């Protein structure tokens, strides 16, 4: 036991967490004693301090910081013996591991866990809304449900699952043996369960879970019950995790590409994550700061949002949306990358306008910072900001449109293989376009004033986030499933999953446009009699949609355990990750490959992307092919 408590792992993590809570208890009480506050022992103060402090103790106990402590103390660091590479049983996924492939799977599984939890909350929400009046939950619980639903799905599903998929495939795609900072990578992952646990625990807080929406507008949030702090602090951990991963991706992409892998030979998934990471590094600090303000106001009585003492409530919205508009692209650009890979491979055609695809990603990064106040048209902000924001918002649809047309041109006269990943990619293309159209409508000030805070917004965000992001996530998971697990998924179940999702999705969220235009407000537990018909319909459809997820989960679990073995390159793709075995060898490559051509030369006779020689033999571009990767 004593040895177990000394070695990194769950025992030590548990012990350290307790220690952390005790420490925070002591610290808070000491400070209160010094200031002679009354009462000396204050449960709320201690809980808030412990929510900030105990996670660090947990992470230290788990062992994410061990190496750095040795380094900092100038002691001999444990030489990297690669003992933490690879996972030999499912237990290894519950340990701190520095292998990007293990971390990738940890990320994907953890975020899908939170997706299922958040999805179950959506089912409760729809059950409540199936008829007017109160069904199952009271208004306060309802507010809590939709708030936690949105926060989990945004901060603990869509953002991290993309980071997880990219964690797995990105180093392989650029011919790197791992990420640039493997230990930081492990730390980034382990901050996620912390954030998610905090948010879920808020249901047990006195006063219930946080109930201010995922936007947590001040001053509603600054005088909400304790549960609010679990959002505020949870977001800090999720945000720190994203920033650390984004740094890691950027440094990996810039410094670890294989010889010959110039920026203009990078697969678009790499480009997409490059752009996303830039957005994360620049924008995410703003949401961290906005939540710091709330924390300071809530816990220490600061006056950032106290208008009576000179505070400014609109400032919250400016800071929040300065992050959260770019964040919608953080939730979309990696999906653009996934779809580009899949469409090109499954249509057996080069990507149309490869460079425009990359440039439009960068254009979105830049323009994404100029539109934030389109979320504030009805907030009462200075009127002169509106029109410029309307114009920039309309402009940002242009690079997005360029991408849509490039994908369509890629499909043009291609030999389409309509398997599950491709179906989801095509589903994305159609649904996201619809979401983009409602987005442009919302950018128009008169329209937005009319439908603001109605179900039209809910329809828009689900067309872009579910029909957009989630469809690309499904596409990506199916596409790389053989590579990640070494087994094939069940194609028939995959197709059933797609059609159930596609139909269920449209029946659920399509009618929301209608009830929204008719004026049904969002974020309210009850509604007028006139909306009853549509809402019952929507609720029924949403249960189909919920059930479709079970098909997916079953397919993944059963195929991972007992699916047929996958070959190294079942899709006949050119990108590097498919040129190694499935799953890839423990260090990805015996020798780093040499890249001699573009990644999407499908249908081009004799086209080669990477060559796999031993390092001495490999010659740069133009040399003869040894192991062909052509079609």
């Amino acid at each position: 036991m004593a040895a177990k408590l000394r070695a990194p792992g769950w025992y030590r993590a548990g012990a350290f967490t307790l220690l952390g809570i005790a420490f925070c208890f002591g610290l808070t009480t000491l400070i209160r004693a010094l200031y002679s506050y009354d009462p000396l022992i204050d449960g709320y103060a201690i809980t808030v301090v412990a929510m900030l402090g105990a996670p660090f103790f947990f992470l230290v106990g788990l062992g994410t910081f061990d190496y750095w402590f040795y380094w900092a103390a100038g002691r001999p660091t444990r030489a990297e013996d690669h003992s933490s590479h690879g996972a030999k049983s499912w237990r290894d996924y519950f340990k701190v591991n520095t292998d990007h492939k293990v971390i990738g799977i940890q990320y994907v599984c953890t975020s899908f866990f939170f997706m299922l939890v958040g999805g179950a909350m959506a089912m409760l929400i729809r059950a409540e809304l199936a008829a007017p009046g109160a069904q199952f939950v009271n208004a306060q619980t309802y507010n809590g449900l939709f708030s936690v639903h949105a926060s989990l799905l945004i901060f603990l599903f869509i953002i991290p699952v993309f980071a997880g998929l990219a964690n797995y495939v990105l180093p392989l795609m650029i011919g790197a043996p791992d990420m640039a900072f493997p230990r930081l990578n492990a730390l980034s992952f382990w901050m996620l369960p912390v954030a998610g646990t905090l948010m879920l625990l808020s249901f047990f807080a006195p006063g219930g879970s946080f109930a201010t929406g995922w936007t947590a507008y001040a001053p509603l949030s600054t005088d909400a019950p304790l549960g609010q702090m679990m959002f505020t602090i949870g977001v800090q951990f999720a945000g720190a995790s994203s920033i650390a991963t984004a740094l890691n991706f950027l440094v990996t992409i810039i410094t670890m590409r294989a010889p010959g892998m110039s920026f203009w030979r990078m697969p678009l998934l790499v480009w997409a994550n490059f752009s996303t990471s830039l957005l994360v590094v620049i924008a995410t600090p703003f949401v961290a700061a906005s939540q710091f303000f709330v924390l300071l106001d809530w816990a220490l009585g600061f006056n950032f949002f106290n208008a009576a003492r000179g505070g400014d409530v609109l400032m919250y919205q400016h800071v929040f949306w300065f992050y959260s508009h770019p964040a919608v692209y953080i939730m979309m650009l990696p999906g653009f990358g996934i779809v580009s890979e899949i469409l090109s491979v499954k249509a057996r055609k080069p990507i149309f306008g490869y460079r425009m695809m990359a440039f439009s990603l960068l254009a979105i990064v830049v323009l994404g910072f100029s539109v934030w106040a389109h979320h504030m048209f009805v907030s009462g902000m200075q009127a002169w900001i509106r029109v410029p924001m309307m114009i920039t918002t309309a402009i940002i649809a242009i690079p997005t449109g360029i991408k849509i047309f490039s994908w369509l041109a890629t499909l043009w006269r291609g030999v389409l293989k309509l398997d599950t990943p491709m179906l989801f990619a095509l589903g994305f293309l159609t649904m996201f376009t619809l979401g983009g159209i409602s987005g442009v409508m919302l950018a128009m000030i008169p329209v937005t004033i009319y439908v603001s805070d109605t179900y039209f917004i809910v329809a828009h965000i689900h067309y872009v986030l579910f029909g957009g992001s989630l469809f690309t996530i499904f596409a990506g998971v199916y596409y790389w499933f053989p590579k990640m697990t070494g087994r094939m998924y069940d194609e028939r179940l995959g197709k059933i999953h797609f059609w159930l999702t596609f139909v269920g999705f449209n029946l659920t969220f399509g009618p929301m446009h209608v009830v929204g235009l008719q004026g049904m407000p969002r974020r309210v537990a009850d509604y007028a009699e006139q909306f009853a018909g549509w809402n019952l319909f929507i609720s029924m459809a949403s249960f189909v949609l919920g059930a479709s997820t079970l098909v997916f989960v079953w397919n993944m679990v059963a195929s991972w355990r007992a699916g047929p073995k996958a070959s190294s390159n079942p899709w006949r793709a050119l990108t590097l990750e498919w040129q190694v075995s499935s799953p890839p060898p423990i260090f990805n490559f015996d020798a780093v490959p040499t890249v001699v051509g573009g990644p999407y030369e499908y249908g081009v006779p004799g086209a080669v992307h990477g060559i796999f020689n031993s390092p001495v033999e490999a010659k740069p571009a133009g040399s003869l092919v040894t192991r062909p990767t052509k079609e």
Partner: protein
Amino acid sequence: MEAASVSHLEHDHHGPPEANKSSRVDPAMLGMLLFIISEIMVFGAFFTAYFFIRVVNTDSWPALGQEIPWAIAGINTLILISSSLTLHWALHSVKSGNRFAFKVGMLSTFLLGACFLFIQVNEYIHLGYSPTESAQGSIFYGLTGLHGAHVFIGLTLLLMVTVRAFRGHFSAEHHRGVEVPGIYWHFVDVMWVVVYATIYIL
């Protein structure tokens, strides 16, 4: 190291292949620079709050009846700037192999930084108003406190480097562990000049 890795792997591997270096920038340095960008953005958000409270709301600055001690903070600014100079000297010394000057440089940098933090805390104690009285007070404490937290992080990094310096680490060839925390410290200093200029002087 190589031999150890073979023993527990079924594959006939010898550890990961050497990654290709596709850029001349050092990964650790690049990582630190990107981190500094996101730090700048955190400050950017706090300056946004400052802008709204002071400029958009057109309230008095500082709040009526309060004073901002610009003179003491000015001395503190000089202290912080000189710590950047000593740090630069320390780095220069380790590069040219002068270990004694390196150790003195690191130690004095650390002490100057600690001195800054001490004076800052003292300023808080004698200020006579708290962040709870007005939004102006909130953002004053918010920005200087945020900066103070960065000084604290920077000092922790410097302490590590100093400890390692006295333990005989680093050499004329290997001094990345000094350079990377060093760039962070310079960032903290520059940030202070901005904070000082906007909060105390303007």
